[in-house]
C-alpha cells in the first residue's frame, strides 16, 4: 500500500501507542470466562483418546482393533490405515518449513514407532472409561528395535537407523549410506586458519544442552466435528488457526474449503503449538463416529509426545587479539531433531555469531534424528543453544584476556552497516545501546558477596514478518472492530486495538479487537517468530489508514471540497479548504451515522506480506549465589536490556522480556528430559520436570531500548523471542565467576555443581 497517511512521526505525537491500557480480553481472563481449548463442548460430543507406543523404537507388526470396537460405547477406532500415506512435501510454516509426510507420521505412526509416546491408534467413545477400556483392548504387536537418543551417538556410523531412506543433505559429495544426520548446513566467511594465526588468545570448549519442553500450562486440546456433507469444523488451541486448517487438509487429503477452524484462547505456546497433534485424529474419529470428538492431552502426553526443543552439543573455538578484536571463530552445532528431521540447527547456525563483527568464521550445523519426540519450535528456535556455547566461550575469552565482558562485546559488536554473519546488512539496530545500558546500569557496579558471581551474555533473534490479513469495521456509532487471524498468546489483541485507535483517533476502549476463525478473515501466518505486532499490526494500521482515507473522501464530498482539503485530526475530519466550510469538522461518529448517504458501510481490509522486520538484540546481567554445601544456585538479581523498536504496549513488552528470561533460567538451572535405559522419559510431569516457580526467581528488570524500526508504521520490532537467548550463558557465566569453574553442561543442577566444587 502506498497511501501512508497522517503517520505520526515521533513518539511525542502518539496518543495511544506507548500507553498501558487494560487489555480488551482481560476481564474474561481474570474471571474464568475465557474459553480455552479444553473448555469448549458440543452436544453429543465423544471422548477421544490416543494409544501410544511404550517403546522408543519398534516396528509395528500388527494392530488388532476388533476387541476395542466391540466395547459398548466405543464409536470409532483409527490407525494409520485411516489416513492417506502422504508423499514427502515441504511447506513453509510460520516459524519453519515442515514436511507434511513427517507431520502426518508424527500424528500417527505407520510402520514404526519412533519414540516413547508416539501415537499408534486413537479411539472415540461415549465416556472416558469406555475410551480407556478401548485403548487397553487394542492389541499392538511390536518388534522392538535398538534406539538412540543422544545426538552424538545418533551420528555414529553404526547407530540404529530411524529412517532407512534418510540421506544426509548438504554434504559436498552425496552420501552412499543412509544416516541419522538429516542435513549439514554451513556458514563461512574469510580464512579461518589465517584468523586463528593472527590471534593472541584462543579459547576452545565443548558445551552441552539438554532437551527442554516449552512447558505451556495448557495441554493441547481440540473438538472436531465432521459433518455428514463432509464440511468439517475444528475448535482448537493453537498458535495459528490457518496452520491447523492447512495441516488437517494435507494430513486427511481434504480441500481447505471443507475445514473451518475456530481458535480457542491459547494457554501458552512458545512455539510448541505451531503444529498439529490431535486435530487430524479428532477429525478422523469424528468422520467414523458421525459425532463431534473432543481430545485433551494429559500432561504426561504433552511431555512424551509434543515439543520439546533439541538437546545439543556445541563446539566453539574463538580467537582474538590482545585488544579483544575477534580474529576467527569455528563453531560446530549438533542438534537433536527428534523422530523426524527439522531441528532448529539452521537458525542456531545463523544466530550463533549474529552479535559479532568477525572477519573469519565457519559455523557448521548438523540436524540429527533421534528416538525422542519430534522437536517443535521453542521461542527463538535454536538460538539459545548456540548462544550458550558462544557466550560461554566469550566469557572465557574475556577472562583469558583480562577484559571486562561487556567491553569485549562492545569491541566486536555489530552496528548499522555491518554485514551480518548470516548474510544481510544490519540497519537501524539497537545492539550497542543495549550493551551501553547494562554497562551503565547500577546493577553492573553493585557489590557482590561471598559465593556470588555476575554473568553477562547477549543474544540475537531475526524476528519475521510475513503474510497477514486484518479488517477494520466502523460501527454505526463511530466505534470500531478490528478483526485479525492471529491467536493472542500474550496481549496482542491490545496491541492491535491500540494501533487502530491511534490511526482512527479513537480511545482504545472504543475499538474491539477480535481473533476470527478461518472463514471470517483472510489468511494469516501463525503467531510465531515475533511477527504478530509487526506484520499483523502493519495490516491493522494500513486497514485503519484506508478507513481514514475513505472518511476524508466522504467528508470532502459532504463539504464539496477536494479530498486534499480535508485533514484527519484526533478522530475528526477537518476542512482546511478555502470556502464557507473552512474549519468545519465531522467526528467519526457523525460520519458513521451518515454513512448510508456517503457510500455505505465504512469498512476496510488489508492483506499483505510484511517485509522489513527489525531484528532483536538483548544484553543481560545475572547475579547468582552458589550454596557450597548443596550446589544449589540462587538467582539474586537479573537485568535485561533489549532493543524493542517502539513498544506498542510497554507493559506487555516487559512481560515478554520477563517470561523469556524466566524460561531461559529454567533451561539453565533445572529443566531436562531424562530417559531411562529403554528410552522412556522418566520425568514426564511438572513434579520431576521442574519449571521455575515464583520462589525461584527475583524481580527481573526489563530495560526497553527504543530504536524504532522505520519499516513499521509505529516503529515496532518483534520482542517475544530474543529475551530467552542470553539467559543460559548469563547464568552459567555468573556461576563461573562465583565458583571459578566453567560449567559446560546444562542444566546446572546441584549434583553437577557439587561435583564441580569437589573437583576444584
Amino acid at each position: 500500500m502506498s497511501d501512508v497517511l497522517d503517520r505520526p512521526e515521533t513518539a511525542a505525537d502518539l496518543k495511544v501507542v506507548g500507553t498501558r491500557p487494560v487489555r480488551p480480553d482481560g476481564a474474561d481472563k481474570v474471571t474464568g470466562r475465557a474459553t480455552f481449548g479444553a473448555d469448549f463442548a458440543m452436544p453429543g460430543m465423544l471422548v477421544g483418546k490416543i494409544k501410544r507406543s511404550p517403546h522408543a523404537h519398534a516396528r509395528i507388526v500388527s494392530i488388532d482393533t476388533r476387541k476395542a470396537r466391540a466395547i459398548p460405547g466405543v464409536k470409532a477406532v483409527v490407525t494409520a490405515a485411516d489416513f492417506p500415506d502422504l508423499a514427502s512435501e515441504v511447506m513453509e510454516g510460520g516459524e519453519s518449513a515442515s514436511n507434511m509426510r513427517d507431520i502426518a507420521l508424527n500424528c500417527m505412526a505407520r510402520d514404526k514407532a519412533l519414540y516413547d509416546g508416539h501415537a499408534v491408534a486413537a479411539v472415540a467413545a461415549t465416556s472416558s472409561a469406555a475410551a480407556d477400556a478401548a485403548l487397553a483392548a487394542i492389541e499392538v504387536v511390536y518388534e522392538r528395535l535398538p534406539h538412540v537418543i543422544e545426538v552424538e551417538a545418533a551420528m555414529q556410523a553404526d547407530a540404529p537407523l530411524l529412517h532407512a531412506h534418510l540421506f544426509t543433505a548438504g554434504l559436498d559429495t552425496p552420501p552412499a549410506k543412509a544416516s541419522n544426520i538429516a542435513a549439514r548446513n554451513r556458514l563461512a566467511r574469510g580464512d579461518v586458519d589465517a584468523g586463528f594465526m593472527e590471534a593472541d588468545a584462543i579459547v576452545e570448549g565443548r558445551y552441552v544442552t539438554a532437551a527442554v519442553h516449552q512447558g505451556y500450562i495448557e495441554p493441547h486440546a481440540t473438538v472436531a466435528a465432521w459433518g455428514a456433507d463432509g464440511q468439517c469444523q475444528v475448535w482448537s488451541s493453537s498458535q495459528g488457526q490457518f496452520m491447523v486448517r492447512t495441516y488437517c487438509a494435507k494430513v486427511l487429503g481434504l480441500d481447505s474449503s471443507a475445514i473451518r477452524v475456530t481458535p480457542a484462547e491459547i494457554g501458552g505456546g512458545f512455539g510448541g503449538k505451531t503444529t498439529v497433534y490431535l486435530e487430524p485424529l479428532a477429525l478422523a474419529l469424528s468422520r467414523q463416529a458421525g459425532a463431534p470428538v473432543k481430545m485433551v492431552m494429559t500432561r504426561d502426553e504433552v511431555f512424551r509426545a509434543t515439543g520439546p526443543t533439541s538437546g545439543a552439543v556445541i563446539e566453539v573455538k574463538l580467537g582474538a587479539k590482545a585488544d579483544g578484536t575477534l580474529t576467527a571463530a569455528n563453531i560446530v552445532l549438533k542438534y537433536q531433531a527428534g523422530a523426524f528431521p527439522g531441528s532448529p540447527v539452521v537458525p542456531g547456525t545463523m544466530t550463533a555469531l549474529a552479535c559479532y563483527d568477525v572477519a573469519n568464521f565457519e559455523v557448521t550445523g548438523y540436524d540429527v534424528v533421534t528416538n525422542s519426540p519430534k522437536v517443535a519450535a521453542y521461542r527463538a528456535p535454536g538460538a539459545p543453544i548456540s548462544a550458550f556455547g558462544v557466550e560461554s566461550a566469550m566469557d572465557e575469552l574475556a577472562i583469558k584476556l583480562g577484559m571486562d565482558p561487556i567491553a569485549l562485546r562492545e569491541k566486536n559488536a555489530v552496528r548499522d552497516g555491518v554485514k551480518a554473519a548470516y548474510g544481510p546488512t544490519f540497519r537501524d539496530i539497537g545492539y550497542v545501546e543495549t550493551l551501553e545500558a547494562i554497562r551503565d546500569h547500577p546493577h553492573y557496579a553493585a557489590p557482590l558477596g561471598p559465593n556470588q558471581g555476575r554473568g553477562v551474555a547477549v543474544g540475537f533473534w531475526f524476528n519475521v514478518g510475513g503474510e497477514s490479513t486484518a479488517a477494520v469495521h466502523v460501527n454505526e456509532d463511530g466505534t470500531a472492530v478490528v478483526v485479525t487471524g492471529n491467536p493472542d498468546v500474550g496481549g496482542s489483541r491490545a496491541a492491535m486495538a491500540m494501533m487502530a485507535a491511534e490511526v482512527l483517533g479513537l480511545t482504545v476502549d472504543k475499538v474491539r479487537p477480535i481473533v476470527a476463525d478461518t472463514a471470517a478473515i483472510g489468511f494469516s501466518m501463525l503467531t510465531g517468530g515475533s511477527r504478530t505486532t509487526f506484520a499483523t499490526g502493519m495490516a491493522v494500521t494500513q486497514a485503519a489508514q484506508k478507513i481514514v482515507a475513505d472518511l476524508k473522501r466522504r467528508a470532502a464530498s459532504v463539504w464539496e471540497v477536494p479530498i486534499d482539503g480535508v485533514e484527519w485530526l484526533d478522530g475528526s475530519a477537518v476542512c482546511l479548504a478555502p470556502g464557507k466550510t473552512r474549519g468545519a469538522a465531522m467526528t467519526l461518529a457523525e460520519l458513521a451515522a451518515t454513512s448510508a448517504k456517503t457510500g455505505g458501510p465504512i469498512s476496510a481490509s488489508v492483506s499483505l506480506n510484511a517485509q522489513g522486520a527489525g531484528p532483536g538484540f538483548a544484553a543481560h546481567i545475572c547475579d547468582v549465589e552458589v550454596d557450597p554445601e548443596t550446589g544449589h544456585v540462587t538467582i539474586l538479581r537479573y537485568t535485561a536490556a533489549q532493543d524493542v523498536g517502539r513498544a506498542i504496549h510497554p507493559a506487555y513488552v516487559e512481560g515478554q522480556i520477563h517470561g523469556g528470561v524466566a524460561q531461559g533460567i529454567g533451561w539453565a538451572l533445572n529443566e531436562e528430559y531424562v530417559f531411562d535405559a529403554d528410552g522412556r522419559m522418566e520425568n514426564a510431569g511438572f513434579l520431576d520436570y521442574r519449571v521455575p516457580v515464583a520462589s525461584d526467581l527475583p524481580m527481573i528488570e526489563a530495560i526497553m531500548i527504543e530504536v524504532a524500526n522505520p519499516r513499521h508504521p509505529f516503529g515496532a520490532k518483534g520482542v517475544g523471542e530474543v529475551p530467552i537467548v542470553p539467559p543460559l550463558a548469563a547464568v552459567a557465566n555468573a556461576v563461573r565467576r562465583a565458583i571459578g569453574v566453567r560449567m559446560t553442561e546444562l542444566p546446572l543442577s546441584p549434583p553437577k555443581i557439587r561435583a564441580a566444587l569437589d573437583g576444584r
Partner: protein
Amino acid sequence: MSRNHVSATVNGDPVEFLSHPGATLLDALRDDLGLTGSKEGCGSGDCGACSVILDGRLVCSCLVLAAEAQGRRIETIEGMADGATLHPLQQKFLEHAALQCGFCTPGLLVAAKALLEVNPDPSESETRYWLAGNLCRCTGYDKVIRAVMDAAADMRQARVPA
C-alpha cells in the same frame, strides 16, 4: 458403574451432581457444573491451575475426589468478582498486566486470595513462596507478585477483607 450423589455449596449456591467414583472435584466443577474457569494443567497437583478454596483451605481440585465435596463449601474463580465488580486482585492483575495467556490466572488469583485471607500484608518473599504451587510459564512472576502486593496494599488501605 454406580455414581455418587453429591450435594455441596459452590460460590454460595447449593449444587448437586452425580460423580463417578474416580472423578475429581475438578472434573465435577468443569464437566458437571460447567465451571470451566478452574483449569487442568497437570492433573497431579503440581501446577495449581485448578486451585479452589475448600472450606476455607486452598487446595488443588484435581487432588480432591468429587465425592469428598459432599457437604463442603467450595469457592472458585467464578465466585471471585462481586457481580460486575471485580475483586481488587482481579483489578490489579489487569492494571499490572500480570497475565499473558491467562490460563494459570484463575488458579493464581484463587491462591492469592487465600494468601491475603491469612496474611493481609505479605512480604515479596512470602508472596513468592505462597504462590510457588502455581506455575506460570508466561510472566516470570514479576508482574504477578507486584499485582498481588499492590492489591494487598489497597485492601489494607480500604480495610477490605479478602
